[in-house]
C-alpha cells in the first residue's frame, strides 16, 4: 500500500513539475458563449463591437501554430498594435485590451505568421 501511495505521489509530483504546454488550452465548443461562436472553420470574433475597457475574443484556427492578431485604424488601415500568439486548432478564447487606445473605430485582424489574412472584425472604442 505504501509503495502504491509512493508511486502515486511520485507521479503526481512529476506531473506537477512538468512544463506547461506552450499552447493555449483547447476549448470545447460547449464552453464557447453564444456571442463568440464562429460557424466557419477559421475566424475571429469579439463579444461586443462597442468596447470600453476590454472585450472577450474568440480566435478560431485551422491548425496549431503561430498567428498574428493585428489592430488597425478604422480609416487609414494603419497598424497600431500587433501580437503574436501560439495557439491550437479550433476555438481560442482571448481578450482585447483597449483602455490605452484612442476612442476611435478599429479593425481587428487575424493573420497567419506570414501576414496572410484569415479574418477581420471591426470594433469601436467608446
Amino acid at each position, binding site marked *: 500500500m505504501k509503495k502504491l501511495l509512493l508511486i502515486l505521489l511520485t507521479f503526481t509530483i512529476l506531473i506537477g513539475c512538468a512544463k506547461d504546454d*506552450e499552447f*493555449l488550452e483547447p476549448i470545447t465548443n460547449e464552453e464557447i458563449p453564444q456571442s463568440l461562436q464562429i460557424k466557419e472553420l477559421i475566424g475571429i470574433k469579439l463579444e461586443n463591437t462597442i468596447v470600453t475597457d*476590454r472585450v472577450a*475574443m474568440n480566435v478560431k484556427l485551422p491548425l496549431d501554430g503561430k498567428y*498574428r*492578431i493585428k*489592430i488597425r485604424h478604422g480609416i487609414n488601415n494603419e*497598424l*497600431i*498594435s*500587433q*501580437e*503574436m*500568439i*501560439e495557439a491550437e486548432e479550433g476555438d481560442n*478564447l*482571448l*481578450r*482585447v*485590451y*483597449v*483602455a*490605452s*487606445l*484612442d476612442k476611435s473605430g478599429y479593425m*481587428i485582424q487575424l493573420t497567419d505568421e506570414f*501576414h496572410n489574412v484569415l479574418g477581420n472584425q471591426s470594433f469601436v472604442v467608446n
Partner: protein
Amino acid sequence: MKKILLLLVSVMFTLSSYGQSSIDYSPVNTVTQVGDTLIMKFQYFKGDGNDLTLGQLDFEYNNKLLSYVSHESQAPTGASFARNNWTGYKFVPKADSDEDDMDVQYTWWKDEAGANSYETGADWSVERVTIQSASALENGQEFIKYSFKVKDKFGSGYSNYNDIIKVNWANYQESDGTQIQTTRSKDGQDLSGIEGGNAGNFVINLKTANTDNYTDYSYTVKNGAGESVATGTFDESGQASISGLENNVTYTAEANLTEAASYLDEVVTVSDLALVFAEAIGAGSGPSGGSTTFDYFVQDIMADVVGDGGVVDFQDSYEILAYLQGVDSSNTNLITQDGQTEDYSGIASTYGAVANDVVTFAKSFTPIDSDASSKTIDLAHGLVGDVNFSHSYTPVVESGGKSTSARQSSARYSKRDSEDANIDLISEINDEGQVVFSINSDVEGMVGSQFNIVYDPNVLSLENVIFDTGNTMTNFSNIVQNGIVRVGSFDQNFESTVKEGTPYKLIFTPLETIENTSGLISFRVKEGVKADGTKINFIIQ
C-alpha cells in the same frame, strides 16, 4: 422760311428752359465711413423771373441707410417755417409723367392722386418743408439743412447707397398764388465710397500639417488697439466663421494649439533632432548666418528651442536631445512637448517671409466690402521644435525659401525627403509570463530612430528596455507619461547607424493574469532618419 422756323424753335426752347425754377439738393460735406454725418442742403434757384414767396418741398430718404439726426431751418428772418415727417411711406410719382417736373408731381399729389400718391414703404421716410415769406426769396436761398447719420448697409437689403434721398415734388408760388414751374436738380442723391460697416460673415482657414486635429486650435482676432474682438475654435474642417468685424478696419489674427492636446510629445522627434544637429554642424545660424542646411528661414525660428534670437547652434540640438532622452537639462526651453506649445502663426501667403533679414509672421488683414476675397484669410500655424513641419505649415512665400536667396547653402536637409521602410513591431508572452515587445528592423543606414510606445499601465508594468543598436549609438528610453514610453537612438556624429535585427526590446510584467496581449501595446511615433537627413517612415505590415 426754314431758318425762321429754326430760330423760332430755338427761342421757344430757350424761353422754356429759362422759365423753370429749381429745387436743388446736395451734400454740404463729404462722407466716407459708416457712422459719418451727412449734411444735406435744400436750396431754391430762381429761373423764371417770378417772385417766390411760398416754397414747399417734399422728399423721402431711405431710413435703412440714413438715420435722421437733426435739421436746421435756413429760412430768412421774418419768414415762417414748418417741417413735417412721416415714416413708412414712399411717394408714387404720376404715371407717364416727367418725375423731374416738380409742379406736375405737386399737382398730382394735390389734385389727382387722392390716396394713391403715397404707398406704405417701411424703408422710407417722407419729409416736408414749408417756408413762407412776405417778401420774395432771393435766388440761391437755402430752405433747410438736414443731418443724417450714414448707416451700415449690411443686412439692410441694399447693396449700395444710390438714390438714398429723392425730392418728390415742390410747390413754388408767387404771393398771388401763381404756381411757378419747377424742376429738380437730380433724380436722387447717391453716396459712393462708403467704407466701414459690418464685414458680414468672415472666414478663417487654418493651415497646418496637423490636419487630423483642427479642432484643437483656437483663433484670436484683435483690433488695432490690441483688444480681442473675436475668439473661438476651428471646426473639424479647419475653418472658423466669425462675425462682427467691420469693413476697412485692420485686424490681426493668430492661431494657437491647445496645450492639452494628447499628441504634443509626438511633435518633436529624432528627425527634428537630426535636422537641428546638421544645422548646428553646418554653422547655420539664422537669416544673418553664412551657411545653412535648412530649406526655409522659418526653420531657424522653429529650431531655436533655447530662444536666443533665431540662432541655431549646438545648444538647441543638445536641448532637443536631452528632451528626447528624458534628461532634465535645467534649462527652460521652447520645445513643443506634453503640456507645452510655442505657437507661431500668420497669414499663409507671407508666413515665414524674410524682410530686412528678419523672419516675419504678418498677421494683419482688412475686410473690404467691395472685395469678396478680403472676407477670407488663410492663417498658417507652426510649432517651435517642429523643424520638419510634421505638425506645422510649410511656407510658400518665395522669400521664405533659402534656395531662393543668394546665401551660400551647404548640403540641404530637405524636410520633404522621406522614404518608407518595413519593420515589424510585435508583442508576445514569453515562457516566463512576461510580455515582450520587440522592434525588429532590417533598415540600413539609420543614424537615428524613435518609437513612442503606448501601453496599458493598469495591466502592464515596464520592467526593462534592452538595446541592441550597436556600441556607439546614443540610446534613450524614458517614460513620457504614465503609459507612454519613448525609445530610440541617435548618433550626433552622423557616422554610426542603428544595428539591424532587434535593436529594441521592451519587457513588461503583467499586473494581472493575461492570456494574450492584443491591444495592450500600441505604437504612435515610429520613424527613423538617415545620415543625409532623409526621414524614414516605418511601415508595419
